[in-house]
């Protein structure tokens, strides 16, 4: 998906650059012609009309770039509470990765988890004992909560 979107965006970019170049060339030629016609009064109305094909090319290029960018965005986030919450529960970190496989910075897990884990009330001595116990019983085997 990402390669496709990148190719489309790059193609659109080339098209747009070409359109710009055409427009520039056209206006340069046009102003040259006006200058040779030597009309001093109309010198401010240089290059008023671009050829229709350049205009069309510009518009088409814009839309192609848009298409490429839209294809390249990551999936939209759920906006319904229960869908969002369900995604957190069901997919865990997997559901919040971007295209590069990195977990989003603002992913917090269940934002209400702290209500039950209560980090400010942590009983550190009990945790240490449990950890020592876990090490003694050959930790790294299975982990239980």
């Amino acid at each position, binding site marked *: 998906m990402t390669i496709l979107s990148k190719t489309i965006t790059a193609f659109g970019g080339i098209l747009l650059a070409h359109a710009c170049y055409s427009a520039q060339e056209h206006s340069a030629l046009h102003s040259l012609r006006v200058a040779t016609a030597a009309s001093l*009064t*109309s*010198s*401010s*109305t240089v290059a008023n009309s671009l050829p229709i094909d350049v205009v069309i090319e510009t518009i088409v290029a814009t839309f192609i770039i848009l298409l490429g960018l839209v294809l390249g965005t990551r999936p939209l986030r759920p906006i319904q509470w229960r869908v969002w919450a369900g995604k957190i529960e069901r997919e865990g970190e997997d559901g919040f990765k971007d295209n590069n496989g990195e977990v989003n910075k603002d992913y917090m897990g269940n934002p209400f988890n702290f209500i039950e884990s209560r980090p400010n009330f942590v009983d550190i001595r009990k945790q240490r004992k449990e950890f020592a116990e876990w090490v003694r019983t050959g930790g790294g085997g299975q982990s239980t909560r």
Partner: protein
Amino acid sequence: MAQVPVQTIHRDPQLFYWILFPITIVMILTGILRHYATVLMASAPKKLDQKTTREQRSLLHGMQVRSSFHALSKRSFNSRRDALITAYESGAYLKDPERKGQPPANPMTDPSSMEGMMGMMKNQMAMIIPNTLIMSWINAFFSGYVIMKLPFPLTIKFKSMLQAGVATKDMDPRWMSSISWYFLCIFGLQSVFNFILGNDNAASQMAQQMGQMGPQTAQMFGPGVDPNKQFLAEAENIAVVDHYSVLDGVEDRLLEGIRV
């Protein structure tokens, strides 16, 4: 209509280097200076004693109960409602219950509220003083020249803004003087400051003005507000809540909504 011939003014290119750049650099540097001055002058948020915290949080608690009553069953809500209303009406949560009913102290004599006002004054000063200084500096040194031409056409209305200090009637409004460059800098350097100083910097005055507009919780517990009246109003609000619970018929909603 006859074409207006394009005005060309021959300027010394040195103007560009000796006016445009200095003004911009000075503006950026003052912005940074202002940021750090504000950080230094900022007084630490005032410690609230237990009584004040209790007063404020009890009120907040009442509001929470009122706004999320639907999460409770009717019985739990009613018991909370009764408890809160009696406590509010008897003034049990007030900082000093014996002063109940008296008018609030004059905020001018209350030292705690004076401090808040001083803080605001300091912020205002940090904004006004550098601006005045720079403006007079620009007016003294660079007034009266045209320094650049904007690359887009403008209507005549902009003339007074952009050509302040240049009293020429027929000049195209695209030409701008140094004082208008200064104004452009004031409004346009916002993102530069964001880039240099991070998002919540004190240099961007626009943000400060925005902050002043939205009255936040500070306003709610600000000086001159009678907490007893707030409590009584809240008691009334809680009393009129028409209770329903989200738990009513939740199983039917579940069976309707979820298909296996």
